[in-house]
Structure formats: C-alpha cells, structure tokens
C-alpha cells in the first residue's frame, strides 16, 4: 500500500481522486501496490484517515466537508509532517509572485522526508534549484510533470533523451493564448471577442492576465529550460511579450502569406523569451485551439516534437498520477 496526501481539492485535485477511485485497480496492477489517500487537505480543514479514505462519497458529491472523516481547522503545513502520506500531491493554485502556499508545502514535505508530486508551477519557476537541492539532500523524489503540458511527457524527455543534449526549445505552452490566436485566424475574430469566447468556454480566467500576458508560458519555459537543459533560471530571467496587441489586420496579412501569428516560448544560448512569431502554416508547431506543441532541438539527434492537450482537469490528473506511479513503483509496500 502506498499512502497519498493531496493538497488542493479544486478541478485538478477532484480529477486525481476520481481517477484513483475509478482506475485504482488498474494502477495497482501496474505497480503491484494499492494507492490509497490518507489525507486530502483544503484551506479550512482536511479529510484524514491513516487506514485510507473512503473515496466513494467524495466521488458521488465531491463535497469534502460532508465526508465522515472531515476534520475542520487542520492546518495543512503543520499536518503534512505528521500525516501518513508517503507521496504528497501539491495541486493548489499558484501565486505567481511568491509561489505560495505551494512552495511552503513542497519544502515542508521534502524536509519531512516525503516524496512530492506537483502540478503547481509557481514553486518550480521561482525556486527550482532550492527544491531540487533539498530533495537530493533528503533523498526523496520530486516529480512535476504536470506543471508543463499536463500529461505530455515532456519533462520525462530528460530521461528518454538522455543520450543527447537539448540545445534549444521552442514551445507553444499556453493553451489560452493559442486558442485566442487560433480563433482570430480561423474565424477572423478581433482579440476581445476571441478572449470572451475563451472565457465562456472556461479556457481563460476572469482575469486573463497571466495567460494573455505571457507569464504562464514564461513560468513553464523556465521549468523546461532548468529541467531539460540544466539551467538555473527564474521567471525574472524571461523576456516576456503578451498577445493583447495582436490585431485582426495583422492576422489576416500573415494568413495571406501562408503564415500564422503564434506565441512561442524560446530557450537558446542562455536566453529565455516568450514572444510573438510568424511561423509557416505547415510548421509542426502550427497547432490550433488549446493544443500545446513543444520542439526540443538536440545536439546530435535532430529535432523532437511533443504535442497534446496541455490543460484541463483529466489531463493534469493524468500527469500527476503518472508521476505518482513512477515514484510508487520503488516504494516498499
């Protein structure tokens, strides 16, 4: 048995629980161990049971506070250390400036000798080196595949492409911006209308600044470059340009020339940039809608492209559980 603690019970957290509830047997067969939740934390309390939380009622109504094991007032940060969880899943929303509360959760978990899986980007684009160094010191595993491209196995390329060096990254890693630019291209919509549509479909937040301003892509780019190229950058090192000033006229003119306007994240020669680029409509990066596309250029083995749905609850949950299973394989149980 492998004990899991989940911090954050929003869209992603709920999908992680649903997935374990519905596919737990399958996961168990893969690793010959049963995955159980022993803690599910929210900001005003937690459901805890060291023998394993019954997930049925949670899956039925999704209401953490009605669960028989709900304990109000539990402080996540205090409880992580003494909880039964062996793998801590951090899925809280990101404060882009501080990385909190996720950063403190991650550091506390590692300090307590627990393994960590995170879908929360903030701690990793702000304090990548600190987290990884502490994990090394404490001999625990930290996986964060869901922070970039959700279930796209892009961070795993560090292992799967270990025979070569990544020398350049070009990526479309913000689904919201890609959706808006795609609608401007295919439907000739002005930016404002495409944004409103993205908000109505749930692809953009009420305050879309992090997405359309390029900050979300910048954070992910930092994680990609640090992890795959061995850099030690933070989001402050990224030159960032958003998509808010892209006009219908510009999109139309580009289209007439067989080009697309895309927000591309670049890492090359020690420099990081998120900016607008004209790319051929035939480029492998010319994905439309919310799809993500990432190109890794290697020193000896050419270019590799990774593509897929980079956002959404089930996609992020898949990324998280892939990391959980990776760690759980090596745990006694």
């Amino acid at each position: 048995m492998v004990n899991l603690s989940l911090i954050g019970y929003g869209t992603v957290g709920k999908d992680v629980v649903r997935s374990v509830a519905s596919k737990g047997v399958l996961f168990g067969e893969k690793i010959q161990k049963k995955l159980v939740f022993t803690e599910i934390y929210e900001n005003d309390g937690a459901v805890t049971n060291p023998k394993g939380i019954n997930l049925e009622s949670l899956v039925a109504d999704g209401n953490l506070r009605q669960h028989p094991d709900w304990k109000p007032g539990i402080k996540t940060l205090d409880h992580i250390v003494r909880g039964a969880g062996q793998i801590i899943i951090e899925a809280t929303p990101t404060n882009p400036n501080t990385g909190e509360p996720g950063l403190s959760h991650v550091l506390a978990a590692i300090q307590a000798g627990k393994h960590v899986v995170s879908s929360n980007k903030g701690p990793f684009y702000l304090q990548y080196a600190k987290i990884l160094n502490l994990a090394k010191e404490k001999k625990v595993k930290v996986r964060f595949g869901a922070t970039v491209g959700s279930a796209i196995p892009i961070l795993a390329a560090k292992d799967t492409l270990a025979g070569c060096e990544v020398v350049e990254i070009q990526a479309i890693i913000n689904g919201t911006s890609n959706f808006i630019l795609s609608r401007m291209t295919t439907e000739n919509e002005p930016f404002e209308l495409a944004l409103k549509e993205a908000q109505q479909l749930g692809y953009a937040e009420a305050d879309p600044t992090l997405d359309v301003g390029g900050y979300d892509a910048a954070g992910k780019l930092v994680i990609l470059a640090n992890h795959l190229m061995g850099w030690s950058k933070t989001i402050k090192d990224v030159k960032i340009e958003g998509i808010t000033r892209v006009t219908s006229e510009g999109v139309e003119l580009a289209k007439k020339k067989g080009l697309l306007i895309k927000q591309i994240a670049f890492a090359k020669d020690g420099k990081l940039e998120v900016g607008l680029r004209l790319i051929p409509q035939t480029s492998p990066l010319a994905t439309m809608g919310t799809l993500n596309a990432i190109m890794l250029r290697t020193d000896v083995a050419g270019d590799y492209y990774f593509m897929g749905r980079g956002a959404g609850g089930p996609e992020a949950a898949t990324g998280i559980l892939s990391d959980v299973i990776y760690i759980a394989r090596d745990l006694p149980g």
Partner: protein
Amino acid sequence: MVLELEVRLMDAPGKLIEMLEPLSQNGANIQGVFHMHGEVQGDLIPVLVTFLLPEHHFESNLNKIKKGLIAKGIEIVRLSAEQAITISFLALGHVFQTDFVDTIRRLSKPGIRVISIEARFKSIKDPSAVLFSIQIENKQKEAELMQLIDEIRQEKDLVIIKG
C-alpha cells in the same frame, strides 16, 4: 547576389581602376573596396572588393569577370558568393502615423534594404499591420537589422512580430 573578391594588386597608380574594369563591364555593382594595408606582401597589396551581381545572366557574367581578371594578370585569392537573406517581419500599431518614410529610411543601410511592404488598415488613422520584407547581404547583417528594428519598435511603440 552579393560577392566578395580578394585579389593582390601592384601598389601603383591605376591598378585599382584596371582591376575594376572587368567587374563594371559585366554588370557588377561595386559596393565597397578595402585595401588591406596591414597585409602588404612585397609590392603586392591585398584588396577586398564587395559587389552585387544581378541574378540575370549571373553565371556567364561571373565567368567573364574571372576571365577578365586573369587576362589582366590579376591573381584571384578568393571569390565567394554569399546568398542574400530575406527577413520578414510584421509591424502592428500606428506604422503610418509615426512617419512611415522615416521607418523605411532607417531600415535602408549598406547591406540592408527594404524590398517589399504590404499593409492592411481600416483607415490611415487606425493602427495598421505592415509586413516588411528586408534583404540583408549576409548573415552578419542580421544583428544590425534586429538592432534597427528594436530601436524603431521602442521609439514608435510598435509590436514587431518576426518571422
């Protein structure tokens, strides 16, 4: 296409004019002549000539130039052709309201020239979209062009989308 020719000439009056004759007689547009005084060998001085040779009858004109130089007893040290590079970028914003002629002029430097522009706009007072195609004579000019574009972008508050 822009070419670079390196020859060794007698350091004497009239030798340079004599060397340039086969070029000018065969369609070459001389862009620069550089005497490498630091590398004089005896009474021979290395000279570097940059010239533009149009695509029309390129091969036959280039052959005539080579034959003309050899006929004059001039030693060709190096003759290299560098394919000119075309770079496109889209400018968004008040491209016309911020002195369009000035923008074109500033993007026209030795080895850098605007070869086409295409625009979309609702009215001349509204923000416009202009696609610039710029030819640079070699890769080394790219950094200079990018510097020029960035200066214009900042000064005129334009969005520049590079190709």
